[in-house]
């Protein structure tokens, strides 16, 4: 205790690293941060870049992350890596895309309903027409 902490690097699609570490360096948005055990709790965003991990009795390991979140607790450090490339504008664009597609479908559906209604009216009208013609024939 005290000289190592537990490090987890996970992304939504898989667990990238899980094990003890003595020291890590991560690319936080405000600049690189180095974290030793018993660090005070911290929560920050990280940029895309390399996380350097010093595991006990092993060489340094380098893990690439494409951005995400870093949570630091005295004995546990968690890096939540993003799998997707993120950005405010990019997310916004994706949301708009999803919305637009949905609206398109709703619109199509309405036109379908309208089409069905028009068809029903047409059938009714032709039936009326036929009945009138029949009546005329009979009555001259």
């Amino acid at each position, binding site marked *: 205790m005290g000289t190592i902490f537990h490090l*987890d690097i*996970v*992304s*939504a*699609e*898989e*667990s990238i690293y*899980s094990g003890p570490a003595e020291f890590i360096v991560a690319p*936080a*948005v*405000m600049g690189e941060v180095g974290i030793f055990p018993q660090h*005070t*709790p*911290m*929560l*920050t*965003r990280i940029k895309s870049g390399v996380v350097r991990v010093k595991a006990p009795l092993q060489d340094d390991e380098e893990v690439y992350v494409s951005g995400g*979140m870093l*949570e630091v*607790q005295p004995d546990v450090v*968690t890096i*939540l890596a*993003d*799998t*997707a*490339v*993120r950005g405010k504008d990019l*997310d*916004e*664009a*994706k*949301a*708009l*895309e*999803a*919305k637009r*597609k*949905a609206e398109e*479908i*709703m619109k199509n*559906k309405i036109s379908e309903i309208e089409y069905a209604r028009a068809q029903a009216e047409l059938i009714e009208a032709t039936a009326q027409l036929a009945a009138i013609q029949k009546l005329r024939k009979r009555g001259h």
Partner: protein
Amino acid sequence: MPSSREIRNKIKSVKNTQKITRAMEMVAASKMRKAQDRMKKARPYGEKIRNVAAHMSNASVEYRHPFLISRDSVKRVGIIVVTSDKGLCGGLNTNVLRRALNEIRTWETEGNHVDACCIGNKGLGFMSRLGTQVISQVTGLGDAPNMERLIGAVKVVLDAYTEGQLDRVYIFYNRFINTMKQMPVMEQLLPLTDDRISSEDGEARPTRAPWDYIYEPEAKPVIDDIMVRYIEALVYQAVAENMASEQSARMVAMKAASDNAGNLIDELTLIYNKSRQAAITKELSEIVGGAAAV
């Protein structure tokens, strides 16, 4: 009795169908293993982010995120419906859609408006036929749940929630229990319930002096990010489970279809043999009758 040629054609067509269902069964079986793997791999992320959320709720944070605040009056409900893109997977989609339909009916009789976000083709078709307002959708995800493609659709729902257009958000999907069993479930996504933000192992943190994180650059954007990612992780997990469910349901359905085709072939073969025998007997007796007449 139908002619033997007709029966033979019928047998041939059933055999062809059986070949297809058997091939689909095998494809589904191999995809199922991968889908289950993906589902398991997605779990650590969900657990970790949940722990972070739990830590955050323990900390004396000065900023409470809207996702954590429950609203008293519920007027508009958002639902995220996860279904498969393709059919031929037994009652999988029907079950989850029936579940959703029941809930929608209840909400609508209570006078709530329902907005839907559809993930998967089957749900989308169902919702637009039903006339439910669809605010966002993703289809054609393929075999892997793709976070990149889910983000947009989920963001529409989250934005609607933050802006107050939705007061509550639920998610419907098939939970994977085992290969033979999938269960349609409804879960509340927003506001986040307490059991969703307490850590999994129920670890009781030693009561310390009030503490808070150091936030970089600031508390609000960092917490916002965490919360959005948490919801996305939950949706991702649901999609991954649904995909594993889909493949195993398809495998079971196709196995049943192949078995049924086998039974049908057996029965038809029996009829075919009988009719062949009858024809031979008839011919023989005609020959014998003819010989006797001469």
